[in-house]
């Protein structure tokens, strides 16, 4: 038996109390913040299944504190026993939902197309529009981010009234595209800068036009970035409230406007509001869980140069 020459220092071999303590602290804080982040969502889901006394007593755990009822969903016309029947509330909800979906998908798509093209052009060629050169044009686009919506809101209200675009989907789509365009350009500029120009040069030598090279070579490589930009735009446009509240009234209302308009009227029936709120956030909760990777990618773009 030989004695071991190399061994850990005594302080490293001692039961590492400090290590366990720090683990405990880290996980404790992680779980604490998870509760803070998720509890409101949990509360909303459970409230949508509560009866009035359950809400008043503040019961929290379904099947333990109270028996879940379809009350909230029934008022929306989305519970199992009302899903077949006629329901004006459900029709309204579905219409608002469709409005939100159409407006946010179209405007995000439009912003990604316009923004990607512009970002590609700016990352590859040098332009000169009057006195404006590339950095100026880039700044022109990005500076739109600073513009607070309230500055545009009232002029747009008047302009749209004259153009008969008030309370139409097209009007909101145009505005939403504008609001997310700088973000898309910012993300995509980063993406295209990371793609070596040699790829396109090879394609050009092989006889493709510049647009052909862009569509067949560059676009597939930049696709993950475009998805990230698209998802981020989708989140912002789906949740947008300010413009929608000002510029729509009856036909083109989006879901946030519907949620907001319900809170004031006729006392609040907690269960139906909870059901409505949850239905409004559900699509994005799903997107957040499934496409989290892209959202993080999108937001991290530009943070790290």
């Amino acid at each position, binding site marked *: 038996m030989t004695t071991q020459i190399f061994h850990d220092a005594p302080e490293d071999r001692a039961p590492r109390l400090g290590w366990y303590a720090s683990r405990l602290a880290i996980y404790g804080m992680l779980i604490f913040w998870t509760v803070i982040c998720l509890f409101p969502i949990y509360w909303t889901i459970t409230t949508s299944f509560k009866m009035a006394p359950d809400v008043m007593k503040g019961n929290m755990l379904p099947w333990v504190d109270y028996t879940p009822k379809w009350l909230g969903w029934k008022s929306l016309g989305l519970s199992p026993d009302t899903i077949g029947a006629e329901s004006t509330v459900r029709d309204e909800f579905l219409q608002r939902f469709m409005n939100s979906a159409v407006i946010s998908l179209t405007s995000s798509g439009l912003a990604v197309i316009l923004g990607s093209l512009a970002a590609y052009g700016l990352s590859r060629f040098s332009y000169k529009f009057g006195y404006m050169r590339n950095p100026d044009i880039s700044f022109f686009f990005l500076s739109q981010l600073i513009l607070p919506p309230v500055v545009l809101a009232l002029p747009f209200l008047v302009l749209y009234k*004259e153009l008969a675009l008030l309370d139409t989907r097209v009007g909101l789509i145009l505005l939403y595209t504008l609001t997310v365009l700088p973000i898309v350009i910012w993300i995509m500029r980063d993406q295209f800068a990371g793609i070596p120009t040699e790829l396109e040069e090879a394609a050009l030598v092989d006889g493709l036009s510049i647009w052909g090279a862009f569509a067949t070579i560059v676009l597939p490589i930049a696709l993950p970035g475009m998805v990230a930009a698209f998802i981020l735009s989708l989140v912002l446009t789906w949740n947008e409230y300010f413009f929608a509240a000002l510029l729509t009234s009856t036909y083109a209302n989006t879901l946030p406007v519907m949620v907001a308009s319900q809170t004031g009227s006729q006392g609040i029936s907690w269960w139906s509001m909870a059901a409505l709120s949850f239905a409004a956030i559900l699509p994005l909760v799903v997107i957040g869980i499934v496409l989290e990777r892209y959202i*993080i990618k999108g937001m991290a773009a530009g*943070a790290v140069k």
Partner: protein
Amino acid sequence: MSETGDLLHVVTNDNIPAGRKAFGRALIWGSAALLLLTALMQTLDRTGVVSIGFANWRPTLYAYVFWAVCLCWAQVLIRGEQGKRVLFVLPAVLFVISLVVIPLVFGLGIAFSDWNLASQGGRKFNGLDNVRQMWADPFYWNAMRNMVWYLLAILVEYAIAFGLALLLNAQIVARKFFRVAFLMPLMLSPVAVSWMIGKSMLEPRFGPLARLARLLGWENPSFFESPVMARLTIMVMDAWTFIPFMMIMILAGLQAIPKEVQEAAKVDGANGWKGFWEVTFPLMLPVSITAILIRIIFKLKLADIIINVTSGGPGGATDSVTSFIYREYRDRSNVGYGTLLAMVYLVIIIVFMTILMKVADRWMRPKY
């Protein structure tokens, strides 16, 4: 990477026939003439010189869109390969100009007029009356003061976001789960948040947070009665939705720092605390400043939660500039005054952000 000079050199023989060039020019000028003609007709119709009976300004809009399309197309016709490059940027530029610059110029016109959309009177130019009214409007300046408080709250948000990013960057299991959970608030619409938290969870009688507050010894928890408390509650709710945003940016920055740097610091005898303040934090400075700047930009637009939870109350203690102008318009439907307030806000923002970016730029530049 230099931002000037072509990165992609294309050599093509652009033998554009003179006819094609002429056609391109004709296209631009022809459509421009059409646009002018339509606009002129509509103006005449509106002022009552001729009566054609336009219901709205749509025809001019269509003519404008047509002109924009022709302008893009003509670029390729006239300038060939060079024009195809311009085509990448031109649509976006035209789009932004027509949706930002035109309304802004138009807004400047509105800002100096008395225009009540509800009344039939239409627009009346009233010179500097709006400016005088703004100068004497205590609620507007109160909203500005509130914005300062809201902006200061970003520092706390930043500290929390940094802490969370450090937690997520530590050696932990189920990192993906925690990341998704931490990201969740950002996905939720502010309107839904204001109902879920502001109206439901903070409900003074049976909301769970009020219950918790009572458990912790606060006799009559009311979150929106005293001005300071109401402002704090709004800050907390806004922070709740936007902390994930800063957290993700900081996390990306942390992950970009090579592990060796920390190890080297450890070898040199830095403990955890010192290693953070003297190594990690300075390295994170550029990312932090970017995150804070973007957060400031978003914070300056803060309105949805305030409109839906407190609508500015109690006594304007929670008003942000945006929510104040929104109410100003909703209550009195005076477009002129609201626009002037918004324009002044824009000017203040531009000055403030320019100074801030200059300072940040100087700060970020390596000192040695």
